[in-house]
Protein backbone atom coordinates (compact mmCIF):
# COMPACT_ATOMS: atom_id res chain seq x y z
CA UNK A 1 0.00 0.00 0.00
CA UNK A 2 1.32 3.43 -0.89
CA UNK A 3 0.65 6.53 1.22
CA UNK A 4 1.27 9.71 -0.74
CA UNK A 5 1.14 13.41 -0.18
CA UNK A 6 0.94 16.19 -2.75
CA UNK A 7 1.75 19.82 -2.01
CA UNK A 8 -1.00 20.80 -4.46
CA UNK A 9 -3.50 19.34 -1.96
CA UNK A 10 -1.85 20.14 1.36
CA UNK A 11 -4.69 18.99 3.63
CA UNK A 12 -5.11 15.59 2.01
CA UNK A 13 -3.46 12.22 2.19
CA UNK A 14 -3.76 9.64 -0.59
CA UNK A 15 -3.59 5.92 0.09
CA UNK A 16 -3.53 3.56 -2.83
CA UNK A 17 -3.05 -0.01 -3.90
CA UNK A 18 -1.63 -0.94 -7.29
CA UNK A 19 -4.65 -1.70 -9.50
CA UNK A 20 -6.81 -1.09 -6.45
CA UNK A 21 -8.83 1.68 -4.88
CA UNK A 22 -7.29 5.07 -4.14
CA UNK A 23 -8.55 6.54 -0.89
CA UNK A 24 -8.52 10.30 -0.41
CA UNK A 25 -8.42 11.16 3.30
CA UNK A 26 -7.51 14.11 5.47
CA UNK A 27 -4.15 14.58 7.16
CA UNK A 28 -5.12 12.47 10.21
CA UNK A 29 -4.67 9.36 8.09
CA UNK A 30 -0.94 9.51 8.85
CA UNK A 31 -1.73 9.31 12.57
CA UNK A 32 -3.82 6.22 11.89
CA UNK A 33 -0.94 4.59 10.01
CA UNK A 34 1.26 5.13 13.07
CA UNK A 35 -1.33 3.21 15.13
CA UNK A 36 -1.35 0.43 12.56
CA UNK A 37 2.40 -0.08 12.63
CA UNK A 38 2.00 -3.38 14.47
CA UNK A 39 0.11 -4.79 11.49
CA UNK A 40 1.95 -3.25 8.55
CA UNK A 41 5.64 -2.92 7.92
CA UNK A 42 6.74 0.58 7.08
CA UNK A 43 9.27 0.31 4.27
CA UNK A 44 10.90 3.63 5.11
CA UNK A 45 13.88 2.90 2.91
CA UNK A 46 11.63 2.99 -0.13
CA UNK A 47 10.45 6.54 0.47
CA UNK A 48 10.68 8.52 -2.72
CA UNK A 49 9.89 12.14 -3.42
CA UNK A 50 9.80 14.64 -6.23
CA UNK A 51 10.57 18.20 -5.29
CA UNK A 52 10.83 21.23 -7.51
CA UNK A 53 9.18 24.32 -8.95
CA UNK A 54 5.70 24.85 -10.21
CA UNK A 55 5.05 27.07 -13.20
CA UNK A 56 1.75 28.54 -14.31
CA UNK A 57 1.47 29.34 -18.01
CA UNK A 58 -2.04 30.62 -18.84
CA UNK A 59 -4.28 27.59 -18.28
CA UNK A 60 -1.41 25.16 -17.93
CA UNK A 61 0.37 24.10 -14.79
CA UNK A 62 3.86 22.63 -15.23
CA UNK A 63 5.70 21.09 -12.30
CA UNK A 64 9.35 20.14 -12.73
CA UNK A 65 10.83 18.06 -9.98
CA UNK A 66 13.97 16.17 -9.06
CA UNK A 67 13.09 12.67 -7.98
CA UNK A 68 15.15 11.59 -4.98
CA UNK A 69 15.26 8.36 -3.05
CA UNK A 70 17.04 9.03 0.22
CA UNK A 71 20.15 11.04 -0.50
CA UNK A 72 20.45 10.14 -4.17
CA UNK A 73 18.82 11.81 -7.14
CA UNK A 74 17.21 9.30 -9.47
CA UNK A 75 15.59 11.34 -12.19
CA UNK A 76 13.48 14.27 -13.22
CA UNK A 77 9.69 14.34 -13.24
CA UNK A 78 7.56 16.59 -15.38
CA UNK A 79 3.89 17.06 -14.59
CA UNK A 80 1.67 18.95 -17.00
CA UNK A 81 -1.89 19.84 -16.14
CA UNK A 82 -4.48 21.60 -18.26
CA UNK A 83 -6.56 23.18 -15.50
CA UNK A 84 -9.92 24.12 -17.07
CA UNK A 85 -10.75 20.63 -18.32
CA UNK A 86 -11.93 17.70 -16.18
CA UNK A 87 -12.67 15.17 -18.89
CA UNK A 88 -9.35 13.54 -19.80
CA UNK A 89 -10.11 12.54 -23.35
CA UNK A 90 -11.32 16.01 -24.31
CA UNK A 91 -7.95 17.68 -23.81
CA UNK A 92 -5.36 14.96 -24.42
CA UNK A 93 -4.51 16.27 -27.90
CA UNK A 94 -4.06 19.80 -26.58
CA UNK A 95 -1.85 18.55 -23.74
CA UNK A 96 0.27 16.56 -26.16
CA UNK A 97 0.74 19.55 -28.47
CA UNK A 98 1.75 21.73 -25.53
CA UNK A 99 4.21 19.15 -24.22
CA UNK A 100 5.79 18.67 -27.64
CA UNK A 101 6.56 22.39 -27.72
CA UNK A 102 9.09 22.04 -24.92
CA UNK A 103 9.71 18.32 -24.51
CA UNK A 104 10.09 17.32 -28.13
CA UNK A 105 10.81 13.62 -28.43
CA UNK A 106 10.46 13.06 -24.68
CA UNK A 107 6.68 13.63 -24.83
CA UNK A 108 5.04 10.60 -23.20
CA UNK A 109 2.23 8.54 -24.61
CA UNK A 110 -1.31 8.61 -23.25
CA UNK A 111 -1.30 7.60 -19.54
CA UNK A 112 -3.04 4.36 -18.60
CA UNK A 113 -5.43 6.13 -16.20
CA UNK A 114 -6.96 7.97 -19.15
CA UNK A 115 -7.74 4.69 -20.85
CA UNK A 116 -9.78 3.50 -17.90
CA UNK A 117 -11.52 6.82 -17.44
CA UNK A 118 -12.71 7.68 -20.97
CA UNK A 119 -15.37 10.29 -20.44
CA UNK A 120 -15.56 10.34 -16.68
CA UNK A 121 -14.29 13.14 -14.50
CA UNK A 122 -10.56 13.28 -13.75
CA UNK A 123 -9.65 13.57 -10.09
CA UNK A 124 -6.52 14.17 -7.95
CA UNK A 125 -6.44 10.42 -7.21
CA UNK A 126 -5.63 9.82 -10.90
CA UNK A 127 -2.64 12.16 -10.61
CA UNK A 128 -1.41 10.17 -7.61
CA UNK A 129 -1.77 6.89 -9.51
CA UNK A 130 0.42 8.31 -12.27
CA UNK A 131 3.05 9.41 -9.75
CA UNK A 132 2.96 5.97 -8.14
CA UNK A 133 3.58 4.35 -11.52
CA UNK A 134 6.42 6.77 -12.26
CA UNK A 135 8.05 6.25 -8.88
CA UNK A 136 7.81 2.47 -9.23
CA UNK A 137 9.48 2.70 -12.62
CA UNK A 138 12.26 4.78 -11.10
CA UNK A 139 12.67 2.40 -8.15
CA UNK A 140 13.16 -0.53 -10.51
CA UNK A 141 15.73 1.35 -12.58
CA UNK A 142 19.37 0.67 -11.94
CA UNK A 143 21.12 3.66 -10.47
CA UNK A 144 23.06 5.37 -13.29
CA UNK A 145 26.09 7.60 -12.71
CA UNK A 146 24.58 10.37 -14.83
CA UNK A 147 21.09 11.55 -13.87
CA UNK A 148 18.66 9.94 -16.32
CA UNK A 149 15.59 11.69 -17.62
CA UNK A 150 12.30 9.80 -17.80
Amino acid at each position, binding site marked *: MYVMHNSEYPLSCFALFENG*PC*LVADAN*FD*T*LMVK*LKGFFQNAKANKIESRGTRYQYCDFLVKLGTVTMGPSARGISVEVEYCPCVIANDCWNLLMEFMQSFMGSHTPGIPSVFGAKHDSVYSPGDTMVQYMELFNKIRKQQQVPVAGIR
Partner: protein
Amino acid sequence: MEAPPVTMMPVTGGTINMMEYLLQGSVLDQSLESLLHRLRGLCDNMEPETFLDHEMVFLLKGQQASPFVLRARRSMDKTGMPWHLRYLGQPEIGDKNRHALVRNCVDIATSDNLTDFLVEMGFRMDHEFVAKGHVFRKGIMKIVVYKIFRILMPGNTESIEPLSLSYLVELNVVAPAGQDVVSDDMRNFAEQLKPLVHLEKIDPKRLM
Protein backbone atom coordinates in the same frame (compact mmCIF):
# COMPACT_ATOMS: atom_id res chain seq x y z
CA MET B 1 -13.25 25.81 29.19
CA GLU B 2 -10.54 27.61 27.26
CA ALA B 3 -8.06 25.16 25.86
CA PRO B 4 -4.42 26.19 26.25
CA PRO B 5 -2.70 27.21 23.00
CA VAL B 6 -2.05 24.26 20.75
CA THR B 7 1.73 24.78 20.84
CA MET B 8 1.79 24.01 24.54
CA MET B 9 0.35 20.53 24.16
CA PRO B 10 2.64 17.49 24.07
CA VAL B 11 3.20 16.43 20.49
CA THR B 12 4.03 12.87 19.54
CA GLY B 13 5.24 11.94 16.10
CA GLY B 14 4.37 15.29 14.61
CA THR B 15 0.67 15.22 15.48
CA ILE B 16 -1.32 15.92 18.61
CA ASN B 17 -2.93 12.96 20.31
CA MET B 18 -6.64 13.61 20.63
CA MET B 19 -8.66 11.96 23.36
CA GLU B 20 -12.37 11.31 23.52
CA TYR B 21 -14.04 11.93 26.89
CA LEU B 22 -17.33 10.05 27.13
CA LEU B 23 -20.36 9.74 29.42
CA GLN B 24 -23.32 7.56 28.49
CA GLY B 25 -26.83 6.90 29.62
CA SER B 26 -30.20 5.96 28.20
CA VAL B 27 -33.86 6.94 28.29
CA LEU B 28 -36.97 4.97 27.43
CA ASP B 29 -38.84 5.99 24.27
CA GLN B 30 -41.63 7.65 26.22
CA SER B 31 -39.19 10.02 27.96
CA LEU B 32 -37.54 11.21 24.76
CA GLU B 33 -39.57 14.39 24.28
CA SER B 34 -38.92 15.73 27.78
CA LEU B 35 -35.21 15.06 27.40
CA LEU B 36 -35.09 16.84 24.02
CA HIS B 37 -37.00 19.75 25.53
CA ARG B 38 -34.48 20.06 28.39
CA LEU B 39 -31.55 19.80 25.99
CA ARG B 40 -32.97 22.49 23.71
CA GLY B 41 -33.04 24.78 26.72
CA LEU B 42 -29.56 23.96 28.02
CA CYS B 43 -27.59 23.72 24.82
CA ASP B 44 -26.30 26.25 22.31
CA ASN B 45 -28.93 27.89 20.20
CA MET B 46 -28.76 26.19 16.86
CA GLU B 47 -31.04 24.65 14.28
CA PRO B 48 -32.33 21.34 15.63
CA GLU B 49 -30.14 18.80 13.94
CA THR B 50 -31.20 15.24 13.25
CA PHE B 51 -29.11 12.56 11.65
CA LEU B 52 -29.45 9.16 10.05
CA ASP B 53 -26.12 7.35 9.86
CA HIS B 54 -24.99 3.91 8.79
CA GLU B 55 -21.99 2.60 10.68
CA MET B 56 -19.88 -0.44 9.81
CA VAL B 57 -17.29 -1.83 12.19
CA PHE B 58 -14.23 -3.46 10.62
CA LEU B 59 -11.69 -5.75 12.25
CA LEU B 60 -8.13 -6.56 11.24
CA LYS B 61 -6.79 -9.75 12.73
CA GLY B 62 -3.07 -9.87 13.03
CA GLN B 63 -0.51 -11.63 15.19
CA GLN B 64 -1.70 -9.60 18.16
CA ALA B 65 -4.32 -11.21 20.39
CA SER B 66 -6.80 -8.38 20.00
CA PRO B 67 -7.88 -7.31 16.52
CA PHE B 68 -7.58 -3.73 15.33
CA VAL B 69 -11.01 -2.06 15.16
CA LEU B 70 -11.99 0.73 12.78
CA ARG B 71 -15.42 2.32 12.44
CA ALA B 72 -16.64 3.61 9.09
CA ARG B 73 -19.67 5.86 9.22
CA ARG B 74 -21.65 7.46 6.43
CA SER B 75 -24.60 9.81 6.38
CA MET B 76 -27.74 8.35 4.87
CA ASP B 77 -29.72 11.58 4.77
CA LYS B 78 -27.19 14.28 3.92
CA THR B 79 -25.67 14.22 0.45
CA GLY B 80 -22.10 15.18 -0.29
CA MET B 81 -20.76 14.46 3.19
CA PRO B 82 -17.45 12.59 3.41
CA TRP B 83 -17.29 9.22 5.12
CA HIS B 84 -16.03 9.26 8.68
CA LEU B 85 -13.35 6.78 9.70
CA ARG B 86 -12.74 6.49 13.42
CA TYR B 87 -10.20 4.69 15.57
CA LEU B 88 -10.85 4.41 19.30
CA GLY B 89 -8.14 3.21 21.64
CA GLN B 90 -8.41 1.34 24.91
CA PRO B 91 -9.96 3.33 27.77
CA GLU B 92 -7.29 4.95 29.88
CA ILE B 93 -6.99 3.40 33.29
CA GLY B 94 -6.96 6.69 35.12
CA ASP B 95 -7.75 7.50 38.71
CA LYS B 96 -11.27 6.91 39.96
CA ASN B 97 -11.68 10.66 40.35
CA ARG B 98 -11.80 11.15 36.61
CA HIS B 99 -15.45 11.51 35.81
CA ALA B 100 -15.50 10.44 32.20
CA LEU B 101 -14.23 7.52 30.14
CA VAL B 102 -11.10 8.66 28.32
CA ARG B 103 -9.70 7.00 25.23
CA ASN B 104 -7.43 7.92 22.37
CA CYS B 105 -9.29 8.74 19.19
CA VAL B 106 -8.35 9.46 15.60
CA ASP B 107 -11.01 10.90 13.27
CA ILE B 108 -10.46 10.93 9.54
CA ALA B 109 -12.71 12.20 6.76
CA THR B 110 -12.41 10.08 3.64
CA SER B 111 -13.73 9.62 0.12
CA ASP B 112 -16.61 7.23 -0.41
CA ASN B 113 -14.58 4.19 -1.55
CA LEU B 114 -13.64 3.61 2.10
CA THR B 115 -15.17 0.13 2.47
CA ASP B 116 -13.43 -1.17 -0.69
CA PHE B 117 -10.19 0.26 0.59
CA LEU B 118 -10.48 -1.28 4.06
CA VAL B 119 -11.24 -4.69 2.56
CA GLU B 120 -8.18 -4.34 0.31
CA MET B 121 -6.11 -3.59 3.43
CA GLY B 122 -7.26 -6.84 4.98
CA PHE B 123 -10.09 -5.61 7.22
CA ARG B 124 -13.33 -7.58 7.40
CA MET B 125 -16.70 -6.18 8.45
CA ASP B 126 -17.72 -7.45 11.86
CA HIS B 127 -21.11 -5.81 12.24
CA GLU B 128 -23.14 -2.83 11.11
CA PHE B 129 -26.03 -0.77 12.38
CA VAL B 130 -28.08 2.33 11.65
CA ALA B 131 -28.21 5.22 14.11
CA LYS B 132 -31.01 7.78 13.99
CA GLY B 133 -31.32 10.70 16.36
CA HIS B 134 -30.55 14.25 17.41
CA VAL B 135 -27.35 16.20 17.94
CA PHE B 136 -26.88 19.10 20.35
CA ARG B 137 -23.84 21.17 21.18
CA LYS B 138 -22.72 23.14 24.21
CA GLY B 139 -19.33 24.75 23.70
CA ILE B 140 -16.99 21.89 22.87
CA MET B 141 -19.38 19.26 24.27
CA LYS B 142 -21.50 17.23 21.94
CA ILE B 143 -24.70 15.60 23.16
CA VAL B 144 -26.19 12.89 20.97
CA VAL B 145 -29.54 11.19 21.58
CA TYR B 146 -30.08 8.32 19.19
CA LYS B 147 -31.68 4.98 18.58
CA ILE B 148 -29.78 2.00 17.24
CA PHE B 149 -31.40 -0.10 14.53
CA ARG B 150 -30.41 -3.62 13.59
CA ILE B 151 -29.98 -4.25 9.86
CA LEU B 152 -32.01 -7.33 8.94
CA MET B 153 -30.22 -8.14 5.70
CA PRO B 154 -26.51 -7.33 5.37
CA GLY B 155 -25.99 -4.34 3.11
CA ASN B 156 -29.67 -3.41 2.93
CA THR B 157 -30.26 -0.30 5.02
CA GLU B 158 -33.92 -0.09 4.03
CA SER B 159 -35.12 -2.95 6.23
CA ILE B 160 -34.15 -2.14 9.78
CA GLU B 161 -35.68 -2.71 13.20
CA PRO B 162 -35.01 -0.95 16.51
CA LEU B 163 -32.63 -2.78 18.81
CA SER B 164 -34.45 -1.69 21.98
CA LEU B 165 -37.25 0.46 23.35
CA SER B 166 -34.86 3.19 24.42
CA TYR B 167 -32.58 5.91 23.18
CA LEU B 168 -28.88 6.02 23.88
CA VAL B 169 -27.63 9.35 25.23
CA GLU B 170 -23.95 10.24 24.87
CA LEU B 171 -22.08 13.28 26.05
CA ASN B 172 -18.66 13.51 24.49
CA VAL B 173 -15.78 15.86 23.94
CA VAL B 174 -12.77 15.40 21.68
CA ALA B 175 -9.86 17.32 23.11
CA PRO B 176 -6.06 17.13 23.19
CA ALA B 177 -4.57 14.77 25.77
CA GLY B 178 -4.08 15.99 29.31
CA GLN B 179 -7.11 18.23 29.64
CA ASP B 180 -8.74 16.69 32.67
CA VAL B 181 -10.75 19.83 33.40
CA VAL B 182 -12.95 18.72 30.48
CA SER B 183 -14.35 15.81 32.48
CA ASP B 184 -15.27 18.13 35.35
CA ASP B 185 -17.25 20.33 32.98
CA MET B 186 -18.94 17.26 31.55
CA ARG B 187 -19.94 16.08 35.00
CA ASN B 188 -21.40 19.49 35.82
CA PHE B 189 -23.45 19.42 32.65
CA ALA B 190 -24.58 15.85 33.31
CA GLU B 191 -25.87 16.98 36.75
CA GLN B 192 -28.26 19.34 34.98
CA LEU B 193 -29.80 16.49 33.07
CA LYS B 194 -30.71 14.54 36.19
CA PRO B 195 -33.21 13.01 36.88
CA LEU B 196 -34.28 12.77 33.23
CA VAL B 197 -31.18 10.79 32.38
CA HIS B 198 -28.22 9.58 34.41
CA LEU B 199 -25.02 9.90 32.42
CA GLU B 200 -22.21 7.74 33.72
CA LYS B 201 -18.78 6.49 32.88
CA ILE B 202 -19.41 3.03 31.50
CA ASP B 203 -16.39 0.83 30.96
CA PRO B 204 -17.12 -1.34 27.90
CA LYS B 205 -14.83 -4.10 29.23
CA ARG B 206 -17.02 -4.64 32.26
CA LEU B 207 -20.00 -5.41 30.07
CA MET B 208 -18.29 -8.29 28.31
